[in-house]
C-alpha cells in the first residue's frame, strides 16, 4: 500500500514537471519585454507586495522569469504570468534594499522560447513604513454613485478589506475619508444626501456631526486634519456636473459655491474667517506640516456651468493659530490662477514640510475630471515649482497624498484608458527627483485591472489598518443622531 502511494506521488510529480516547460535554447531578442503593468525601471520600497506582471501578448503559452538581486538572492517563477511568492519576494527586496533587481523574461509561444532584454527594478533605501492605502472605489459614472465603497489595501500583500461599503448604508453617497497624516486614530468621512453628515472618529469613538448651520451654506465635504489632531478643515460647497457632447472629456465638475471652515472636534465649534467665507470659491483646504498654515484654492465666482472655462483657481494660504483657534488676517497667494491662465488645486504639503504637491490644469476646481490635470511640485524652501514630467501624461493625474515619512506618494491617473482611475506610487529624494511611478501591484494584474469596473479615488496612505465599526455607522446614520455644531 505504501509503495502504491509513493508510486502515485511520483507519477503526479513527473506529470506536473512535464507540464511546466522551461526555456530551452531561447531566441535572444534585443528588445525589452512588453509587460503589463510597465514595471521596467521603476523604483519600489522593500516592503511593497510582489510586482507580479503579465505579458502584454496574450497569445503566449508560458512565461519564465528570473529576478536576481545585485546584492544577492534570486527568484524564479514559471507560469502563465509572473506570480511571485510574497515571502520570497520580500526576502529578496529586503536583501537588496538600496540596490537593484535584474529581471530576465522568457516567453514560450508555439513551442519556441524567446528571451528578452533584461530590465531593472530599483529597491529604494526609503521604506514605506505605512501599513497600506485607503481609497474609495466607485464606478466612473455620472450622477449616480452606485455600489461605492471605501477600502483599505495592505501594501505588503494583495489583501484588500472593506472599511465601509454601500451594503451597510444603502443609497448613501460617502467619500472624503481622511486620516490625520496617515494615522487612522483620527478619521473623518462625509456622507452626502438624505441623512448625511460628517463622521468624526477619534481613538475608535465614532460620532456624527451636522456641520451645516444657519451661518454656513452646507455641510462639510473635502477635509483635512490639523496635525495636532483636534481640528478638521472642511470645504463647504455644492458640487454639480455638466456633460459634454464631444468625444473627449466627458464631464465638467463645478461648484456653485464653496467656503472653507475649521471644526474644533473637542467642542464641535466651527471656526470661521471672513477671508474664507467670501463670494469667491474657497476649496480643498490642507494644513501645513506644522499646522501653522492652511493651504487652499480659490477662484472668482462665475456663471457655471456656462462659463466653466473661466474657473481659474489660485493657490493661497492663511495663518492658523492652533493654540487660540483663530485664523490670520491676511491671505498669501502662492500661485495666481487668473494671472497665469491656470487652475491650481489640491495642495498637499509633505509631512516633513519640504514639498507642496498640487494639481495644475487649464481650468476648473475638480482635477480628476480634467484631462489636462497634471501634478506639480513646489519646493517650500525656495518657493519654486516644477511640473512632474516624470509622471504626468495627457490624461488626468490627481488625488495625490504623501506617505508618513514623505518619501513616497500615491496618486491616481487615467493614463490607461481615460476613464478608470488607477493608483500609482512613486518616490522622491532629497533633491526632489521623482522615480518612475509603478501601478499598485495585484496578484494577476492584467486580469484584475481588466475586470475591475471601479475607478479608484481619494487614495491615502494609512499607518495602520483602519478600524471602523460599520454596524455602528449604520445605526448612527439611520437613527439620524447628529451632534450639532456652533459657531465660535
Amino acid at each position, binding site marked *: 500500500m505504501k509503495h502504491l502511494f509513493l508510486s502515485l506521488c511520483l507519477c503526479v510529480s513527473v506529470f506536473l514537471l512535464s507540464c511546466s516547460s522551461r526555456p530551452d535554447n531561447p531566441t535572444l531578442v534585443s528588445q525589452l519585454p512588453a509587460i503589463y503593468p510597465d514595471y521596467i525601471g521603476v523604483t519600489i520600497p522593500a516592503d511593497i507586495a510582489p510586482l507580479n506582471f503579465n505579458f502584454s501578448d496574450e497569445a503566449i503559452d508560458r512565461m519564465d522569469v528570473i529576478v536576481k538581486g545585485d546584492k544577492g538572492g534570486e527568484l524564479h517563477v514559471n507560469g502563465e504570468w509572473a506570480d511571485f511568492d510574497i515571502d520570497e519576494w520580500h526576502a529578496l527586496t529586503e536583501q537588496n534594499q538600496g540596490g537593484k533587481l535584474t529581471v530576465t523574461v522568457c516567453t514560450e509561444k508555439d513551442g519556441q522560447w524567446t528571451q528578452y532584454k533584461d530590465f531593472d527594478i530599483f529597491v529604494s533605501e526609503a521604506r514605506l513604513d505605512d501599513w497600506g492605502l485607503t481609497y474609495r472605489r466607485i*464606478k466612473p*459614472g*455620472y*450622477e*449616480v*454613485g*452606485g*455600489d461605492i*465603497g471605501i477600502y483599505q489595501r495592505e501594501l505588503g500583500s494583495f489583501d484588500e478589506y*472593506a472599511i*465601509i*461599503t*454601500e*451594503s*451597510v448604508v*444603502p*443609497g448613501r453617497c460617502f467619500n472624503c475619508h481622511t486620516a490625520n497624516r496617515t494615522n487612522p486614530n483620527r478619521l473623518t468621512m462625509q456622507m452626502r444626501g438624505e441623512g448625511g453628515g460628517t463622521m468624526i472618529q477619534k481613538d475608535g469613538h465614532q460620532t456624527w456631526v451636522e456641520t451645516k448651520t444657519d451661518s454656513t451654506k452646507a455641510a462639510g465635504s473635502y477635509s483635512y486634519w490639523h496635525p495636532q489632531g483636534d481640528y478638521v478643515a472642511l470645504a463647504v460647497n455644492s458640487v454639480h456636473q*455638466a*456633460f*459634454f*457632447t*464631444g*468625444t*473627449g472629456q*466627458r464631464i*465638467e465638475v463645478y461648484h456653485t459655491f464653496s467656503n472653507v471652515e475649521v471644526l474644533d472636534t473637542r467642542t464641535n465649534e466651527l471656526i470661521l474667517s471672513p477671508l474664507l467665507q467670501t463670494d469667491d470659491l474657497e476649496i480643498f483646504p490642507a494644513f501645513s506640516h506644522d499646522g501653522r498654515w492652511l493651504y487652499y484654492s480659490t477662484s472668482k465666482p462665475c456663471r457655471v*456651468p*456656462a462659463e*466653466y472655462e473661466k474657473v481659474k483657481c489660485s493657490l493661497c494660504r492663511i495663518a492658523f493659530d492652533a493654540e487660540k483657534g483663530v485664523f490670520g488676517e491676511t491671505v498669501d497667494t502662492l500661485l495666481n490662477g487668473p494671472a497665469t491662465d491656470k487652475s491650481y488645486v489640491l495642495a498637499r504639503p509633505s509631512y516633513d514640510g519640504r514639498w507642496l504637491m498640487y494639481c495644475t490644469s487649464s481650468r476648473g476646481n475638480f482635477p480628476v475630471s480634467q484631462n489636462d490635470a497634471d501634478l506639480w511640485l513646489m519646493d517650500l524652501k525656495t518657493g519654486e515649482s516644477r511640473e512632474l514630467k516624470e509622471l504626468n501624461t495627457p490624461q488626468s493625474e490627481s488625488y495625490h497624498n504623501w506617505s508618513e515619512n514623505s518619501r513616497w506618494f500615491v496618486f491616481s491617473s487615467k493614463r*490607461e*484608458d*481615460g*476613464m*478608470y482611475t488607477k493608483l500609482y506610487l512613486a518616490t522622491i529624494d532629497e533633491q526632489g527627483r521623482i522615480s518612475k511611478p509603478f501601478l499598485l501591484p495585484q496578484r494577476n494584474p492584467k486580469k484584475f485591472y*481588466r*475586470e475591475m*469596473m471601479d475607478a479608484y479615488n481619494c487614495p491615502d496612505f494609512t499607518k495602520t489598518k483602519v478600524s471602523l465599526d*460599520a*454596524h455602528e455607522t*449604520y445605526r448612527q446614520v*439611520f437613527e439620524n443622531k447628529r451632534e450639532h455644531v456652533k459657531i465660535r
Partner: protein
Amino acid sequence: MKTGMAKYWKIGLSVLVGIGMFLFWYVVYPHALSYQEQYQLFLWTWDYLLERLSLPGGFADWLGEFIVQFFYLEWLGALSLALLFVALQRLTARLLPESWLLLSVVPVALLWWLMGDINVLLSLPVAVVLALALVCVRVRRSWSWADVLILPAAYWLIGPAVWLYAVIRVLQLGWKHLWSAGWLLALQLMAYAWLLPQWPLQMAMTGLSYYRIPLHYPQWNGYDKDMYELIRLDYLVRKERWDDIVKRASEYQVKTPFWSNCVNLALAEKRLLADRMFDFYQSGEDALVMPRVRDLTSMLPSAETFWHLGMVNSAQRYMFDTQESILNGRKSGRCTKRIAECMLVNGHYQTAAKQIALLKKSLFYCGWASEAEQMMGDEAKINAHPVYGKLRRLRYKDNFLYSYDEMDKMLGLLFQNNPENKMALDYFMGQMLLKGNVQGFVQFMGWVQQYGGYRQMPLGYQDAMRCIQSQGKVQGSPYANYVKRMTERRHP
C-alpha cells in the same frame, strides 16, 4: 384503480401548474421576464460563483440568477419558471397528506402573486424550493441532531428561507426539536457579528438577496396593471417593436412621461411623430426625453431615444446611471451592452474592451461581444456598420455642454449637424410644441418643408399651426387640448 386515479390526479395537477405558469409568463407577461433579465448579468466564471457563495443565501442567489439569464429568450424563461413552480408544487405535495393534494397549489399561488412585485428576485422562490427539498430529504427522527450541522450549511447556501425548513422540522418532530430554531437564530446573529461586518442586522436576519431594494420587503400588490404596461412598453422598445407600441398605445395609456417617451420614440421610428404626436397623451416638456431620475427604470426609454437620435454621450450617461441605480449592485446586461456600443461609436476602445470582456463571459451577450471585439479599433468596419456608422454621422461634431433645459436647442443643433437626421428634426419641432415655443415652431417650419421629406405638411403640424393662428380656439384640436391641459396644470 383508485391508486391509479390518484397518481394521474397528482401528475395532472403538476402538469396544470406547469402549463398555467408557462402560458402566463410566455403569453401574458413576457415583458416581466425581460425586465428581470435586464437587471443582472450572469457570468459563467468561478469568480462569479465564489462571490455569490461568500454571503448567506449566495447559492440560492446564484441559482436564481442562473435561471433568470434564460429569460433573455422568453420561451426558455417561461419554461424555467414553470419547472420551478412545478417543483414547488410537487415538494409541497410530498409534505402534505394525500387528501390535501389540492392545497399544494397554495404556495405556488402565493409565490406567483408575490412575484408581481417587480423587485422580488428569483432567489426567493429558489430558496423556498431548496428549503422544501431539504425537508423532503427526511432525516430520520433519531438523527435530529444532524440539524446542528445542516442548519448553518443551509443558512449559508439559501439564506433565511431556511426558517421554512426549521419550522417544518419542528412541526414534524415535535416541540422537543424547538432548540433548532434557537440554534438558527444564534447562527444568524453570529454571522451578523463576525461574518457580515458590512451588512445591517435587519438584512442579515431577513435575507441579503431576496429583494432588489435593500432594507425593503416584498409587497402583496400582485400585478399592477399600469406598472406592467410601462414595463411592456419598455420591453417593446428594447425589442424595437415599434408597430406593437403604437398599436398598444391606441388601446391603453398610462399617463406618465415614461409612457410618452416610449410612444413618441415608436412614432418617430415610424415617421409618424409629426403627424400623430398629439393624438397620444403627452406628459409635458419631458414627453420626448425625461430628465435624470435616480431609479433603475425611468431613464431607459430616454436612453434609447438618445441612442436612436445620435446623442451617443447622453445615451451612455443615462445607461450608466441606470445601471448604477440598481440598488443590489448588480450589473445589467442590457445597459452594459449599450454602454459598450456607445464607447465603440465614440472610438473609446480601451473602455469598450472592458465592457466587452465582461459580456463575453455571459451566455446571451457573448455572441454580440465577440462580434464587437472584432470591430474594436477598426474604424472602417465601424464606419461601415449600419447602426454604428450611421450614429457616427448623426452625433454632434462640436463639443459643448449638454443642457436638458434647452433640449429644443440641443435637438435643433443635432439636426443642423446632419440634415439627414430627420428624427432629430421631428424631435426638435416636437419639443418646441411641448414647450409652447410657438415662435420657434413657426420660424423653423421652413426646415420641415426643406428637409422633412414630407409630401405635405404633417397633420400634427397643420393642427398646431391652426391652433397657433387661432390662439388655441380650435374645437377638437389635439394640440389645443394639450396646451389647455398644460395651462391648467400651471395655473390650477
